[in-house]
């Protein structure tokens, strides 16, 4: 490797420096604080990039230019929007359930942050390398629907409640096929730990060496992931033309901003999981036999690989959003229960058969 300083060296250095200067308890505490701050910074930077990218992609796909007035090429537009939201009053209507109303955006945001914990961004750059990483992400990200239901219920508003109910139905059903498509890879890899899954892809990403079933699982995962983040064409929970803004109709100011931020963090989580499971995480792209090409690929730092793949999947989701019309609620449930779920069950059976017969790499 040409990169001599690994991220694990940096974390080890921080750990040793802190332990040398204070007691182990305080050292652990300050490490937690540092990790939390680092995660918040990463998420904020990613969200800013995603919002800017979303608006530019949306503009370009609709023959427009996107934001281009504030700052060079409109790069300051996102900051202008965020400051506008920060300066606005977080107004709560008189008849809302005050506690749930104020708690819902915090819960949604906290859950979205929690799902980022086991993700491995680069070798050694991982908050929590637990043995059930993928299970943890899928389990935690489904708590978010409680926050959405909470927001919809506490708003005391028919539109909000309808949006929240739709969101609940949608997330509960699409989690099945998302989970089953992850199961396909987990069955082949034999581990739920994220670092193990990445390590198992050193000789080829699962999407390439997993044959057709994994490619199918990838497609299903991207569809189900788009649905889980409540994004168009599955944005029934918000459905501007039908429900004003769905479950966050009554929210304003930074409380609305939290829901907005959560959407992008969820997108990031979904695409990071897809990257980790199907596209080899931070591993570079290798073609077996082309050593010169492989060496050039090795030269690119691993975090660039990881975020490049993440942004690719984010782009896919934006591409869907600005191309497809919204599904009706019956079409949405039909797509899941009559098409995606049966097909992914068959897919899991095929994968299980392949694994039992040992016909995979």
């Amino acid at each position, binding site marked *: 490797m040409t990169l001599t300083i690994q991220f694990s060296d940096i974390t080890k250095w921080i750990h040793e420096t802190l332990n040398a200067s204070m007691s182990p308890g305080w050292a652990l505490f300050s490490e937690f604080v540092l990790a939390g701050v680092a995660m918040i910074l990463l998420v904020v930077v990613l969200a800013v990039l995603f919002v800017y990218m979303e608006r530019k992609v949306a503009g370009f*796909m609709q*023959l427009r230019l996107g934001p281009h007035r504030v700052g060079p090429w409109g790069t300051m537009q996102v900051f202008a929007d965020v400051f506008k939201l920060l300066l606005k009053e977080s107004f709560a209507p008189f008849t809302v359930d005050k506690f749930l109303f104020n708690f819902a955006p915090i819960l949604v945001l906290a859950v979205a942050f929690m799902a980022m914990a086991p993700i491995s961004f680069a070798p050694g750059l991982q908050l929590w390398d637990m043995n059930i990483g993928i299970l943890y992400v899928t389990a935690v990200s489904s708590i978010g629907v409680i926050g959405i239901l909470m927001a919809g219920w506490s708003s005391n508003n028919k539109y909000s409640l309808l949006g929240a109910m739709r969101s609940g139905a949608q997330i509960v059903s699409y989690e099945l096929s998302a989970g089953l498509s992850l199961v396909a890879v987990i069955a082949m890899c034999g581990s739920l730990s994220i670092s193990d899954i990445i390590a198992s892809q050193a000789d080829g990403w699962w999407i390439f060496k997993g044959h057709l079933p994994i490619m199918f699982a990838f497609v299903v995962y991207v569809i189900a992931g788009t649905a889980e983040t409540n994004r168009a064409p599955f944005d029934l929970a918000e459905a501007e033309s039908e429900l004003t803004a769905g479950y966050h109709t009554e929210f304003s100011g930074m409380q609305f901003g939290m829901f907005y931020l959560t959407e992008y963090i969820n997108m990031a989580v979904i695409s990071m999981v897809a990257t980790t499971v199907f596209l080899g995480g931070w591993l570079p792209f290798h073609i077996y036999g082309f050593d010169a090409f492989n060496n050039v690929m090795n030269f690119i730092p691993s975090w660039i690989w990881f975020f490049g793949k993440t942004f690719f999947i984010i782009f896919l989701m934006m591409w869907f959003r*600005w*191309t497809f019309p919204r599904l009706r609620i019956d079409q949405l449930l039909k797509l899941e229960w009559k*098409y995606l779920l049966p*097909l992914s069950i068959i897919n899991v059976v095929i994968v299980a058969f392949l694994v039992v017969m040992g016909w995979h790499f």
Partner: protein
Amino acid sequence: MRALIQYIKDVAQGFYSLSQGLLLTLKYFVRPWKHIVEQYPENRTTTIYIPEKFAGEVVLPHDENNRHKCTACTLCEMACPNGTIKIISATIEGEDGKKKKVLDKWVYNLGMCTMCGQCVDACPQDAITMKNSFELSVYNRNDLIKVLNKPGSKLKEKES
């Protein structure tokens, strides 16, 4: 069996039609220089393109000798659904001693005009047309009431 084939056919067809849409938006995405949006305030004197057909306001064209084609027949005034047009005619005595009705003022209230173009259709002389100008806002509402015929303009006689 037939149901199964139909099911698979539906799925394949669905993916095909979705890919058509995706390809179209990708084509737009990768060719930003072909976008149709005008950079309006910057290009208002340079590259802006307003189609000829765009109906911005009603004009009464005059030729180089300051002559228009309006005979003050008031058909446009009657055709206008909004009462935008007011034709004020005057009676003058011609060279042969006949009394003749000529146009005195062609009053056009731009603030009430919906650019429907019925006056242009109604005009038997083709005296008025729609112009594609669009920067028409003014600070005073009274400035919107315009007199279209220029001072001293005369009727352009038909060469029979």
